[in-house]
Structures are given as C-alpha cells and as structure tokens.
C-alpha cells in the first residue's frame, strides 16, 4: 500500500495533467500484480469498498488516543480520517504494512465484528500516509485526483508497443479488477484481451463548434443536418452478453434508466440523445437532471420523468462493425434497422433537408424550441472516428452564447442564501507559459439554477472542497457548468482578458469530463465576433 498511498498523495497535490499521467505511469510500471490492478480499479472508480462507517474510526481513535488531545487535533486538521491517520500512536511491530490486494481480500472475507482489530493491526504497521489511504479506502471516502481517462492514457504509455488509449477504452468494460490480462497484453506477455460479445463502450465521435469563419468554407452538398438535442449523449450497447447504457465519458449509467435497458432487446451499438419526453414533446434539460446520478430509480420517478432515446447513429449491427462506413451509409442502415426492430422508447433523430447554407442559417435562427440547442452538421462521407476529427462533424448552437466551464471556486451567498455556496467562479482551459493546460477564471455566476440545483451544487461543493479561504471554497476542478451569457467583452481588469455579460448557469453538466470543458481561445473567438462589445463595456 506504500506506493498506492504515495500515488494518491501526489495526485492530490499535482495540478498538471501530464504530471498526473507520469505519476500513474510510474505506478503501473513499477508495482506488482495484482496490487496495481486494484490500484487501477481504485483510480477508475471500479472499486467500491465501503465497509466502515466514520463511527468505527472514531472508536478506534478513542481506543488509542486521549480524548482532549483528539479533540484539539481534530479541530486543527478538520478531517476525521486524516486526524486519526496523523495522530495514531507508533506501535512496536515488525509487521509490514498490508498490500492493497491483502486489504481488499481481507475486507471482503471478514465479519463486521472483526473489523476494528483488523484495521488497528494495519494502522499499527503503517506510516501516516498509508494510514490515511487505508482509512479513506475502507470508509469509501477515497478521492483520487485523476480521472479514469488519465489512467487509461497512462496504461497506454506503459505498453511495450504503440497503444492508443481508445483501444483500452474499447475493451475496458469487458475487464475486471485486478486486470491481469490487460497488463499481460500491455507488457507483451499475452494476447490482447478480446471482449468478444461483452457490452463494451466505444469512444464516441465528437463535433467541433462551428464558427462564422468555418461556415463560409463549408460546401453545403457535403453535409447533412440534424437538430442538436438538449439532452445527454448516450451509447446503447446490447449484445448477447448484456446491455449497457454509457455516458459519453464511458460511465455506465444503465442503473439510472432501467426502462431503456429493458427496451434494448436487440444486438446493436447505437449513438443517441437521452431525453425526457412527455406526450411526444421533449421536456427541458432540468427534467432530465432528475434522472441523472441515481443508483436506483423508483416507479414514480420513471412515471414523472419518462425518458426516451433519440437515435442518430449505428456503430455495430449484429456484431458487424459499421464505423468505417460513411455517415450516409450508416444512416441508411440505421433507418432500415429501426424499421425492422421498432424498439420501444426510441425514435430516429430526423434529417433536416436543406439546399444552401443560407437556408440552413434561417432554419437555425427559427429553431426556438427549448429542447433544441442548434444544429449538427455531419459530412455525408464521414466514418465514425473516435475523438474530434477536424472538419467532419460540427455543432452549431443557437443563441445565446454558451461555454462549458469548470467550476473552480464557490462562495457563500447572502441573505436567504447565506448558508449556501451559491456564487460560482468558473474557468476555461488555456496553455500556460510552460505549455501545460491550466484553468483561468473567466467569470462568476449566481443565477440560472433552480432551488433544487442549488441544493445539489451546495452539497457537491462541500464534498469536493480542496481549500478554504474565508467564505470561499476552492473545489476539485472536475465539475462542468454550462454558462450562458449575452456577450463576451475584452477586459483589462480580468486575468483572462475577457469579461462576460450576464453570465448565468445554463445547466449542470455532471456528464461532461472537466478536460472537455471549453478553452479560453473558444471564448476569445466569440469576442472577436463582436468587436462592438468593447464599446458597450465602457
């Protein structure tokens, strides 16, 4: 556990993406099986080991420490597990600290009543860093300062031959801790794990935002248009071995949408938009949020917020990989498949006929339905390529302007909101002097959300605080807010060089990974589109 504890500690303090990858790479390259596989599971959130309640830790502390000293220490440190990890008295023991796999195996096979003595013995044999990791692990409070995606990039980098992280992504959901075949493959000791018919995730194809300059260069005949739906993008995977709904970030969200899973009585991989649909009409995104992040869903929830999937692409049909086919051909296959299968709770996202770009502009300008964010433009000859290939797919949102920003700080509000963290400072990515990505704050929003969302955000902030400065909390840079605003204006008073007019939270984006939030250049490009904004600011 020493190396794992050290990894966690360094990840918590390391801001840089590349540095995090380097730390993960070193861990995977130097640690033995099966420990590194358990560590990998912990980093990717596949390991859930809530076996102890905070009360157990309090009891342990009481058994070994003076209550007054404990109280002063807890008051100073502010975190229960950390306090106990730091003040746990040194014990006379020759026992080595437990290995990660030993911890996991022992906990899985132990009775609750034996827990205190098991954990005490481990704490005795460990140093403060291992004690902290151990206590966080067994109480389910482990926070890893890295995403599953970074872990997969690091895994690709330890391979003894060129491996694309997306290759790992594609087999990931067919694997299980401690991932021995995966490591064997990466180290050239075994074949590539074949998920066969396991319902694995396929990295999605993404679109670039379309700006005025891009529009002029497009040839209308090359592109197909669809509505950009205001839901969450999902990948439906149904094979003989199982059914899964994945978010675009590769999270398995099947449990939140059992009625969709039930309707997936087919063998295909489909790309589409999950929406709340009532009587054929798409409900606002806020309704869909009621359904997100749930481990179980009741009948009432399913009745009040009925979901459906609007399909727009087919990746696999009966085991055949259709991704190399051009979009037009895949669309034809999708339609034929749909006519034949007629799956419940699913329909096809319609194609929008147009002849010229001017016509398309008019269509976009007229699109005022709340469920439509704008248009998607896809090249008719585009293969389905993971990631964001240039010039293939475009997303063309309608006004107002929005950016996807990362929540950086939260501050308590005033009056009725004085107990809530209701003022949010958000930032965008940019390249710093050394060439690494950093977040730069671009604005502050304190409206646009419902009371329910406020409660949710407040709780998130409290659970993800990394530092406190009086009334302000710095949070983990992992939550994306979609910010709507009227205009972006150049500003000398802001670190970012840009100020937003009337920024508000358009919606919460728990489904979006922070590294996919927008870049400062994207916002700057919007400023250049509106040179008159500078004068308005005066």
């Amino acid at each position: 556990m020493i190396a794992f504890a050290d990894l966690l500690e360094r990840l918590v303090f390391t801001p840089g993406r590349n540095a995090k990858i380097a730390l993960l790479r070193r861990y995977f390259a130097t640690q033995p099986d099966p420990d590194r596989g358990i560590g990998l599971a912990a980093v990717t959130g596949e390991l859930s080991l809530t076996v102890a309640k905070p009360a157990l830790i309090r009891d342990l502390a009481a058994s070994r420490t003076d209550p007054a000293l404990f109280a002063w220490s807890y008051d100073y440190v502010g975190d229960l597990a950390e306090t106990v990890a730091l003040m746990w008295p040194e014990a006379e023991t020759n026992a080595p600290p437990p290995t990660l796999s030993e911890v996991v195996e022992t906990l899985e096979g132990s009775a609750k009543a034996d827990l205190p003595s098991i954990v005490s013995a481990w704490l005795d044999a460990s140093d403060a860093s291992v004690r902290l990791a151990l206590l966080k692990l067994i109480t389910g409070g482990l926070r890893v300062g890295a995403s599953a995606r970074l872990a997969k990039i690091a895994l690709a980098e330890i391979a003894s031959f060129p491996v694309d992280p997306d290759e790992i992504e594609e087999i990931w959901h067919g694997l299980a801790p401690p991932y021995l075949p995966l490591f064997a493959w990466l180290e050239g000791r075994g074949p590539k794990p074949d998920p066969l018919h396991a319902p694995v995730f396929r990295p999605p194809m993404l679109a670039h935002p379309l700006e005025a300059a891009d529009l002029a260069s497009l040839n209308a005949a090359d592109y197909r248009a669809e509505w950009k739906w205001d839901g969450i993008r999902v990948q439906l995977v149904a094979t003989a071995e199982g059914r899964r709904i994945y978010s675009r970030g590769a999270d398995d969200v099947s449990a939140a949408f059992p009625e969709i899973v039930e309707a997936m009585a087919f063998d295909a991989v489909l790309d589409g938009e999950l929406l709340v649909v009532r009587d054929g009409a798409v409900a606002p995104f806020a309704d869909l949020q009621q359904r997100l992040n749930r481990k179980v869903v009741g009948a009432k929830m399913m009745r009040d917020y009925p979901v459906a999937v609007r399909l727009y692409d087919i990746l696999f049909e009966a085991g055949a990989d259709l991704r190399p086919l051009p979009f037009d051909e895949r669309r034809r296959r999708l339609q034929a498949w749909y006519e034949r299968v007629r799956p419940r709770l699913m329909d096809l996202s319609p194609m929008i006929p147009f002849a010229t770009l001017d016509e398309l502009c008019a269509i976009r300008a007229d699109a005022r339905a709340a469920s439509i964010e704008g248009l998607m433009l896809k090249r008719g000859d585009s293969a389905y390529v993971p990631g964001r290939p240039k010039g293939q797919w475009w997303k063309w949102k309608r006004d107002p302007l929005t950016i996807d920003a990362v929540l950086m700080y939260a501050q308590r509000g005033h009056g009725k909101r004085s107990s809530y963290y209701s003022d949010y400072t958000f930032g965008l990515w940019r390249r710093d002097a050394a060439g690494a990505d950093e977040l730069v704050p671009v604005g502050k929003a304190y409206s646009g959300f419902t009371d329910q969302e406020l409660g949710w955000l407040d709780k998130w902030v409290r659970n993800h605080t990394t530092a406190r400065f009086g009334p302000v909390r710095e949070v983990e840079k992992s939550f994306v807010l979609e910010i709507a605003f009227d205009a972006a204006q150049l500003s000398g008073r802001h670190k970012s060089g840009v100020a937003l007019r009337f920024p508000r939270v358009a919606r919460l984006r728990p489904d979006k990974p922070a590294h996919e939030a927008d870049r400062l250049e994207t916002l700057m490009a919007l400023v250049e589109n509106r040179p008159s904004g500078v004068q308005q600011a005066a």
Partner: protein
Amino acid sequence: MERAIITHAHSDHARPGHSSVLASPATLALMRARLGADRAGGSQQALGWGEVIRVGGVEVSLAPAGHVLGSAQIVLDHAGSRVVVSGDYKRRPDPTCDGFEPIACDVFVTEATFALPVFRHPDPAHEIARLLASVALFPDRTHVVGCYALGKCQRLIALLREAGWDAPIHLHGALASLCAVYEDQGVHLGPLKPATGLARDALKGAIVLAPPSAVTDRWARRLSEPVVALASGWMRVRQRAKSRGVELPLVISDHADWDELNETVDEVGAPEIWVTHGREEALIHCVGARGVRGRALRLVGYGDEDDEGLGPEEARAADAVDVLA
C-alpha cells in the same frame, strides 16, 4: 533592550538595535550578516558552549539547541535553582549545527510550535528520497523547494549531500549570503550556484532552493515547468499544504515534534514547564497527566505562525530576552 541574550539568529528572535547582546559566536556571525555589524548590537559578547558569565546574581551559560547553526538554550543558575530557556529546538541529528543537549533543571521554558499529536515528523532522509524520486520522474522540470533562508536551507543542502546529490544546488539570491556564513563557520555545503541569470533550460532537472514566498510567485516564472515543493513541519497537514499551492510537500522541520517535546520535558526532569510559541494547551494537558505543572507563557507580539516559512518572520516579535524581563 539594554541587554539581550539571543537564542538564535532567526529574525523574530534576533531583533536589531539592542545595546548589549550576548549570544553564541555563530549566532553573532549570522546576526551581523543579516542585520549589519552595527545593528546586530552595540556591544556583542560571544559565549561558547559551557562558558559561564555572571549577570547580577545569576550565572548565565549557553547550551546547543539543535535548531539552526549557533542556536542555544539559555541556562540560568541562581541560589541552587536552575531555569533553562530552550529557544526553538529540535532533537534530530543535523549536520549543520550542534545537537540539542538536555539539561536537568527546575523550570524548563519550552517552545511548542508543533505541540499537537498530529505532528510527528518523518525521517528527513525519507522526505529527501521522495524529492529525489520526483526529480527522477520529472527530469525536464525544475524542482524548486521553498525553505527558510537560515537553517532549513543549509540543512536541506546537507541532507541532499548525504543522499548522494553531488550536483550543484541552485539558490535564490536571498539564500546565498547565509550559506556563505555557514561555510565560514566550517559547515561545508558542496557546490552552490545562483538560480538567476540562467537560461530556462539550464535548470531542467535541477534542484533550486528559494524562500517560501518566492516559489509560487513571479520569481518562479524563470524556472522550467517547476515542481513546487515546500519543506516545513506544517506540510504534514494536507489542508495547510494545499492552501500553499504546493505540488510536493516535504515534512522536514527544525522543531521538535510532539513526541520529542514530551520526551524532552521528561528528560530534563523539571517539575514545572513554561510553554510558549505554539499550542500551549495540548502540551500542558499532556505533561499534567505525568505530574508536571505547565504554564502558558504568552510572549509579547507573538504571532500565530511559526518561522517554517508560512508566515512573515516578523510576525513573531518574541525574543528569549522577553522571558527574562
């Protein structure tokens, strides 16, 4: 002050402008380097370890405190009773200064910077190994370690040398002059170079030492993608380390940790201790359970921060002499 006995040369203990100053030879040398020869004291009297002078009816002598070069405990004997003022001290071996000598006494005036059981400093060699492992992992980045200019800086250099780091160590300008005083006093630090005036790439893979205030400030922009480290006992608590924007916290302290504070009180055998510079209540509570009477000694101008690089050093205007006044 008309007459001051100075325990060590940290600026919150060694104030300028006293008429007469009594201190160890090394402390006087450091004070002259920091304050200037004239501001270090109207008359400066050096007292070697174990030498005794009489002040009024009191016999005064100095004993090593192990905190930084020249750091002393003040031993006061009067009519068969002995008071020892520890000043700041540590118990771990430190190649850059003489080690702490426990002296039996009737009243022990102890510091309490890290007087909470959560503060238990790890082996400094372990922390240096973490630093060197990071240097190996990120060979294209510069590791910049924030450290106090007097004491911590030179100890880090000595620890790095012990760990086999023979390459030049680069210094922020504020650190260089005190390293020179250490060399004059016979403490050898190996090759040292300025961190300034070099191309950014020249410092790739290098270790740079700088004052804590500089490591996350504009000064550090000259460095190649720096890994910011900070060497301090406070780094043991995550929240403290986080709030400093540190990427690599190193728990290396020049103060006694919780266990060492308690051991020292037991070792000197004083029936009464006066506790200052830190969290008095926990130490008083703990020694009380062992039959030792503890009193909190609130010093004039005492600030909330220790000199381990987390507060302006001037915040703590206390001085060993105030105890005697």
